[in-house]
């Protein structure tokens, strides 16, 4: 098993290097974020030849997996419709992760926020 971890480590490192390379403002920093935090994810969108950054802002519902297979789930409410996205933590399409608000929750998985109104979510995560 340990040799597989070695491979994963190599590719986690490769992903980090790739992000550093793409980041104009220097080093990419992986913040320590938890479920309940409000984050902005900068996603690289490739449209034909061009490439631009699209931000996705929402609450982290859950983190799962380990090593290169780790993912996290972000939920936002856009025009009254709930939108949820699952990001692989080391995906090269992510060019930045920024925590804008720390949440205070008691669960590791916040799936119960799904049916709630925005006001109720605010009350639950602070």
């Amino acid at each position, binding site marked *: 098993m340990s040799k597989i971890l070695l491979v994963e480590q*190599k590719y986690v490192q490769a992903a980090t290097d790739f992000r550093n390379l793409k980041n104009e403002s220097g080093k990419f920093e992986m913040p320590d974020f938890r479920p309940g935090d409000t984050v902005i994810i900068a996603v690289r969108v490739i449209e034909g030849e061009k490439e631009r950054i699209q931000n996705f802002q929402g609450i982290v519902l859950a983190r799962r997996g380990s090593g*290169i297979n780790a993912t996290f789930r972000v939920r936002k409410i856009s025009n009254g419709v709930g939108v949820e996205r699952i990001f692989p933590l080391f995906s*090269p399409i992510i060019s930045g992760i920024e925590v804008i608000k720390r949440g205070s929750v008691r669960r590791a998985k916040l799936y119960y926020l799904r049916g709630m109104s925005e006001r109720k979510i605010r009350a639950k995560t602070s």
Partner: protein
Amino acid sequence: MLLGRKLGMTSIFSQTGEYIPCTVIEAGPCAVVQVRSKEKDGYTAVQIGFEDIPERKVSQPQIGHFKKSGVSPKRHLKEFRSDKVTLTPGEILTVDSILQKGDKVKVSGTSKGRGFQGVMKRHHFSGVGMSSHGQSDRQRHPGSIGSSSFPSRVFKGMRMAGRMGGTTISIRNLEVLDVMPEQNLLIIKGSIPGSINSIVEIVKL
């Protein structure tokens, strides 16, 4: 050609953000133990060995066989047929000397044994009929296995239940995603036959 040990599966990212499933193989180093020639053996082939083994575990005739080519005793030996052989006995084959990123390979191994299995799992039959309307016990059955008075027998090769798995399976055109020479690791796109820790043969196409 190489012998290797399947270590398991993981995933890696490509630069464009694709998430690629891959298998990690500990491939080589293998030693050329014997070269078979047309004149002496009637055919041309190379015998290679993989994984060192203590000399006390090897029988005397086997030790003689390894001594002839000057390699240390190996646990696994395998002969590969090939028309023109450029290798000499005693030569060491490593992953990076044979394969590189982007190559296509054929991987052969022994598939996982599944024991005695019914036709649905073994041959992808779809089962018989429905689960309601009085039918109670025929959902995973093969159905008819032939006609009546003619031919009055069941044809040979009729697909039925039986032992499944544990056979040699080859998959061609698998892509080499990466080679890690320091650890003798080979990373191949997709899955390969066999369980973890099973021995696989790798042939460059």
